[in-house]
């Protein structure tokens, strides 16, 4: 039956900022949805607060609202746009929860808006644990025994029935937030206490432990004619107990017989029918007792999920795209399979390869956090790899992680270490895979490790196989063809073979290639080659037949950014995707190389060809060779995917690969301190005094010379990894001793730290002659907080024209001095009206998407074309990609103000004692994502950014204030204003005294260090936990107050109220709160902003 004709406009709700558990995969699914809706001729309205997404590009919707995804704001959008329908199933839990709220509060009914893709009844049946248990039962299947509780007393009672250990899961939270395993009553009290807070319905599920069972997931689709297909089965390498997002997962399921698999399929179909997901996708998770085969249904998601994105990439079946079509009334048999073109989507993909996904963690950013893996997801990204067997896929996936120590280590294991490794492997951590493999290498048996970990013996045997091959490699005596073939067939990299044979990677590669042992590229085709595939979506394998088709034009390769991590996230994928789009539009054949399944870049129709491959030198060189032999390569872009491809630049150039855009020499010029300071000298610019140290003595000398405080960091880093502000010599000594590996190859950079400086970020384009300044961003927090964690505003709100002009001149001089061809990002600091250059990165930056959204100019697209030789002049005139005149430094005064705010993951991470980690910001980046607030004025834009970051500022209530001595003077005005606005100010000790002397009535409360009073009066932390405080403002100071501050911030973070830790942000918040109380928010689409901006630019032009 063809699509519904009664729908003319649809509102799509996005997923908001990238957070743990809800990441780039929803940009991938949302972007597919928007493309389908547009193709189908509907008017498309989008709300998403995340500017770093492709879906919020204005051309993907008719009206794009970068606004907070809250029921109030979405209601305003509905009132303004009057869509016929809302599609909430592609924006993760955020979109689904928003839709439920809009249904509950009557907005959907009021505006006569239909929910498509899912109905409320189905969402509730799927998500409400108690109701879902009923569903499972009616389907003739089993759930784990469980109790739903709403109070601690109920929890303790349930424990008597279920016994320990027991799983605790709060209802309606995403990514398993607040879930945990309780081994005893103390655990139970703690986890349930938090869980009741996290759950919007104060509901927590307690259930029997199925720890150690095999875990599976089925991805399903159903249409309105009740046709159901299973898109993909996924098996978790890690048994039940580790969140599937943190688990190594494998597709297809590898250790089930057909009978068992069909049982899961039958249950899934019965469940999807009973729940009533009738036009879209869902996934269902299962646990199977490895001893008896007893099947337990764990849960379902009645929407497109993280696993759907993985399943789409793993199989080639575009779940989000097809789900969107189903929501419009199509049936599966009416939708063609894009890949085969001739067969319909009403089939089940079959794989002739193995897919392995490995999570990427960021525990190094949270040293206090416990790295035990639990049912709360903690990974920040993932890498996927495909191979013609499990071992090949696993090893490719591990090297895709691009993290020190991520690859398996085959160096010999002393016998004494084996029991220790087995013991350690009992606790699931990020290290478990390595512990297991090394224990096996050291002589432990598969049975020993199954006993310790419950990882399926088949997988353990595969690790054993890798160990055996490592011995064969070592014992081969030479790099023989047979040995190399066998090693490559099981995924060993040239580097690994080199390490085992005491050869360099280059020697291994040389010999291997001379022997003609090269990977072939197979095609992901959904059907195991039963039908011809028309989409060039490739993966490498050491096998016989290559499938890369001849191409008529030389290709342009774009190297992606690999797995998402803190400091290198979706923003870089955005630039890669834009480059591919712009280059294809300009007539080039583009080739994307990436290994991140969450992203838009790895959608098979973004580029002319997609290679799903690790981004190591070896893997990239082989892709280039494949492209060379099938039609030639014009060049490679390394400047778009962040540090990952950038660090390959020189080696690729050495291998004779043409680098498009900025040359490796220029990259080096910007990255190397000495060379870069010569560029600055020549341009008459200065940087903070600095030096490079290769020992503590060095470091001390430099620090003494330039004066404390100093900023110390390892060279060549992204995201401020290991960066710290050091105030004195003992701390410098500690930093050098603990935090870094310091060698002549890995020096430590020491900079004078500029206190109270305003930090300025610039993104610009340079073509060798002309510069286009994309945007100047003023940071809200002062220098010292990593730019990725700091809020910033564009256009700058406190910088004078003169400063902007100096920034502009400096940017041009640096771009020219470095020799940039394309994008450059420069960070400046303005201290006492002196402009310092902090650093320059000759590549796409994290802020490119924000600048592009805020100014309506797509910079990455322009950069890609500059890389092919197009000039900025041409981009302004012929290509209409840049404005004809002016740039981001000449925005009119009535241009909208955009605020970027970082979103931080502190609530996910617990210390060994079970408290959340400290939320203080610093020079090391820890945010996972960002949101944007855009409005006429800064105050409302900032307020929107806070609401979008799930950190909505209060408009009334109690505010706790406690600041360090140095800040006391600067907060009085703001606190006074809040008090005048009717807030109750609560404070402790010295801050309270200062406030009272300034005429502010501050209610005194007990400090954490003081403890509860004899009468039972609690401390400020107790008040926060009890929900009596609406906002915390605490700036850190040394000593006792610091730990007091930690308890307080931890309390605020764990219950999710705003916790402001800098004066600058506090002042912004005061403005925002006042604006919130004065003006009602209005919503404006990017298209409207662009139109009015164009108008005022035109007016300005006419005046000029």
């Amino acid at each position, binding site marked *: 039956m063809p699509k519904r004709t009664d729908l003319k406009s649809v509102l799509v709700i996005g997923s908001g900022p990238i957070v743990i558990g809800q990441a780039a995969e929803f940009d991938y699914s949302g972007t597919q949805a928007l493309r389908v809706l547009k193709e189908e001729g509907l008017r498309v309205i989008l709300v998403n607060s995340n500017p770093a997404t492709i879906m919020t590009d204005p051309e993907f919707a008719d009206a794009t609202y970068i606004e907070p995804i809250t029921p109030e704001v979405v209601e305003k959008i509905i009132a303004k746009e009057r869509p016929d329908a809302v599609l909430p199933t592609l924006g993760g839990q955020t979109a689904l929860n928003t839709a439920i709220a809009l249904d509950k509060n009557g907005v959907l009914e009021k505006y006569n808006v239909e929910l498509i893709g899912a109905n409320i009844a189905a969402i509730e049946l799927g998500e409400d644990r108690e109701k879902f248990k009923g569903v499972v039962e009616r389907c003739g299947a089993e759930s784990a025994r469980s109790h739903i509780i709403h109070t601690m007393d109920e929890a303790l009672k349930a424990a008597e029935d279920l016994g320990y250990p027991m799983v605790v899961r709060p209802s309606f939270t995403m990514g398993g937030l607040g879930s945990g395993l309780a081994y005893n009553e103390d655990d139970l009290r703690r986890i349930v206490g938090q869980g009741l807070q996290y759950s919007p319905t104060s509901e927590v599920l307690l259930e029997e432990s199925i720890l150690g069972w095999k875990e599976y997931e089925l991805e399903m689709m159903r249409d309105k004619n009740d046709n159901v297909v299973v898109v993909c089965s996924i098996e978790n390498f890690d048994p039940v107990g580790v969140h599937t997002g943190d688990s190594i997962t494998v597709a297809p399921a590898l250790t089930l*017989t*057909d009978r068992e698999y069909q049982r899961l399929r039958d249950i899934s179909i019965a469940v999807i029918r009973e729940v009533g997901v009738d036009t879209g996708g869902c996934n269902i998770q299962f646990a199977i007792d490895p001893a008896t085969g007893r099947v337990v249904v764990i849960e379902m998601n009645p929407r497109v999920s993280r696993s759907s994105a993985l399943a789409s990439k793993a199989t080639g079946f575009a779940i989000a795209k097809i789900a969107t079509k189903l929501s419009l009334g199509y049936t599966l048999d009416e939708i063609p399979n894009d890949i085969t073109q001739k067969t319909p989507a009403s089939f089940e993909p*079959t794989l002739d390869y193995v897919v392995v996904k490995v999570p990427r963690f960021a525990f190094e950013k949270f040293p206090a956090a416990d790295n035990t893996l639990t049912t709360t997801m903690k990974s920040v990204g993932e890498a996927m790899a495909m191979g*013609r067997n499990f071992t090949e896929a696993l090893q490719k996936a591990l090297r895709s992680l691009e993290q020190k120590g991520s690859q398996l280590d085959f160096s010999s294991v002393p016998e004494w270490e084996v029991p220790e490794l087995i013991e350690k492997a009992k606790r699931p951590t990020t290290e478990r895979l390595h512990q297991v493999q090394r224990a096996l290498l050291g002589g432990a048996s598969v049975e020993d490790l199954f006993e310790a970990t419950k990882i399926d013996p088949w997988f353990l045997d595969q690790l054993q196989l890798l160990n055996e091959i490592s011995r064969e490699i070592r014992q081969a005596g030479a790099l023989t063809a047979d040995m190399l073939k066998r090693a490559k067939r099981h995924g060993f990299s040239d580097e690994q073979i080199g390490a085992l044979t005491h050869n360099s990677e280059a020697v291994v590669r040389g010999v291997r290639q001379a022997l003609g042992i090269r990977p072939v590229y197979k095609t992901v085709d959904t059907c195991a080659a*039963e039908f011809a595939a028309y989409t060039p979506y490739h993966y490498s394998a050491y096998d016989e037949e290559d499938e890369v088709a001849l191409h008529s034009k030389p290709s342009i390769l774009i190297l992606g950014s690999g797995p998402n991590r803190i400091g290198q996230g979706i923003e870089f994928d955005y630039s890669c995707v834009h480059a591919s789009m712009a280059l294809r539009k300009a007539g080039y054949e583009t080739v994307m190389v990436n290994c991140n399944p969450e992203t838009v870049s790895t959608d098979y129709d973004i580029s002319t060809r997609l290679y799903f491959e690790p981004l190591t030198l070896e893997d990239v060189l082989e892709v280039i060779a494949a492209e060379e032999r099938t039609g030639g390569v014009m060049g490679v872009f390394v400047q778009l995917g962040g540090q990952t491809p950038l660090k390959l630049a020189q080696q690729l150039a050495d291998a004779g690969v043409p680098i498009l855009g900025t040359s490796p020499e220029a990259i080096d010029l910007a990255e190397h301190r000495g060379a870069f300071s010569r560029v600055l000298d020549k341009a008459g610019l200065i940087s903070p005094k600095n030096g490079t140290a290769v020992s503590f003595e060095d470091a001390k000398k430099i620090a003494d010379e330039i004066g404390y405080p100093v900023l110390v960091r390892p060279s060549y880093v992204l995201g401020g990894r290991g960066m710290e502000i050091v105030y004195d010599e003992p701390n410098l000594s500690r930093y050098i001793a603990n935090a870094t590996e310091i060698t002549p190859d890995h020096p430590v950079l020491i900079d004078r730290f500029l206190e109270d400086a305003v930090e300025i970020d610039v993104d610009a384009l340079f073509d060798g002659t002309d510069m286009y300044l994309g945007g100047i961003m003023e940071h809200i927090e002062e220098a010292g907080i990593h730019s990725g964690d700091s809020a910033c505003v564009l256009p700058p709100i406190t910088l004078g024209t003169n400063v902007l002009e100096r920034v502009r001149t400096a940017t041009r001089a640096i771009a020219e001095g470095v020799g940039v061809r394309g994008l450059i990002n420069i960070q400046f600091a303005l201290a006492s009206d002196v402009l310092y250059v902090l650093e320059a990165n000759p590549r796409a930056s994290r802020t490119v998407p924000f600048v592009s959204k805020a100014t309506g100019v797509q910079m990455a697209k322009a950069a890609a074309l500059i890389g092919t030789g197009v000039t900025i002049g041409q981009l302004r005139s012929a290509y209409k990609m840049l404005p004809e005149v002016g740039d981001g430094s000449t925005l009119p005064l009535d241009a909208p103000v955009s605020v970027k705010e970082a979103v931080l993951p502190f609530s996910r991470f617990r210390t060994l004692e079970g408290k959340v980690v400290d939320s203080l910001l610093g020079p090391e980046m820890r945010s996972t994502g960002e949101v944007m607030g855009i409005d006429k004025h800064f105050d409302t834009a900032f307020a929107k950014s806070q609401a979008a970051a799930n950190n909505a500022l209060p408009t009334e209530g109690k505010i706790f204030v406690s600041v360090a001595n140095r800040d006391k003077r600067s907060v009085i005005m703001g606190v006074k204003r809040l008090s005048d606005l009717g807030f109750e100010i609560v404070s402790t000790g010295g801050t309270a005294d200062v406030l009272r002397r300034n005429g502010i009535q501050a209610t005194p409360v007990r400090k954490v260090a003081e403890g509860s009073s004899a009468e039972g009066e609690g401390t400020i932390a107790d008040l926060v936990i009890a929900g009596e405080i609406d906002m915390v403002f605490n700036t850190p100071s040394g000593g006792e107050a610091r730990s007091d501050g930690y308890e307080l911030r931890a309390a605020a973070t764990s219950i999710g109220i705003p916790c402001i830790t800098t004066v600058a942000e506090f002042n912004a918040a005061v403005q925002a709160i006042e604006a919130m109380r004065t003006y009602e928010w209005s919503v404006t689409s990017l298209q409207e902003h662009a139109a009015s901006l164009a108008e005022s630019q035109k007016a300005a032009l006419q005046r000029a």
Partner: protein
Amino acid sequence: MSAPAALVLEDGRIFRGSSYGATGTALGEAVFATGMTGYQETITDPSYAHQLVVQTAPHIGNTGVNSEDAESRRIWVAGYIVRDAARRPSNWRSERSLDDELVEQGIVGIQGVDTRAITRHLREHKTMRAGIFSGEAAQATDKELVDAVLASAPMEGSRLAEEVSVDEAYVVEPKDHGWEGDPRFTIAAIDLGIKAMTPVRFAERGVRVHVLPATATLADVKAVNPDGFFMSNGPGDPATADAQVKLLRSVLDEKLPYFGICFGNQILGRALGFGTYKLRYGHRGINQPVMDRRTGKVEITSQNHGFAVDAPLDGATQAPEERYGRVEVSHVSLNDDVVEGLACLDIPAFSVQYHPEAAAGPHDAAYLFDRFIELMEGTRDGRTANLSKEPVDAAHPAQADNTGAGPATPKNSDNKTEDKK
């Protein structure tokens, strides 16, 4: 490492790998099967007799072999082609390794070959004769190997049902498969290579099944006093099944309700007077979409057929054997429009080309067993003697609304028509 082995195709293409299972020579028709689960069911499916089966799923043998999942008394594939054979099985029901089972039953296999390349080759150049040679047999020259393959019998014109069928009749009782109470019906089922799950599916529904050898006569059928008649799947070229076609016609003339699966579908097609033809590379997998034209619904089916019935796709047509009245194509493959089911409108008979008994594969089509029971009920009660009184209109919403859509246009006719006789 095991001994070298070679897969040799009749067009001269040779893939080298290493030996798997027994060592020696295996000759047969090379076909690929795309299921990701169910290798034990696959190798024990008699329809694979005289075929060398390429598994497209790369890991085979992971769950070992057990005594419950076999679809017949032995392994029938003539040879087995896999990429990565499991070193150790892992499953709570596993009793022994697949490798051991293959050795014990003398099945010659090959591992470590590019199964995807082989599949693509067969897809592009159609299924063909092939040989697996391992150990000493692999030492021969390429020419000798190809000659050996060329000397083997082609599938077309092969009469194999009698070879795989049981010699003695046996009965499958409902009470042994969870049915409480007396059997509702009795049927005679001709074993042309029947899979074990088929009689089980009947028995679960209260139907007593007399499984008869492929050589059974009308008298043998009548002797069990059946309410219905069934013909199973099986290997070989349906064009050779004259005996079974004759038997079926005599049964149809008796107005006994008929249900056929796979080979049983082709025999019904021939009995009605249609021809059969060989597909380029067949349908062998458990993910095959089929449209049930009576309900407009899609079912994901288990399939294993190299031949198909040549019947007009759209609407009711007069059977060439006019005494059987009108017939329609009830089920069609959504991948390539191959006839996947026939329904007689004037006599109580229908059949499907695919495998509603699954094993391996999805259970979507299990309703067909119920449909047959309804047909037997109708015949017994004298209500209807055929399928034409089914509520076609009500159950055909898709077609009713699809105004002007016209006849389905063949999409992927490569597989369907190339070798049409």
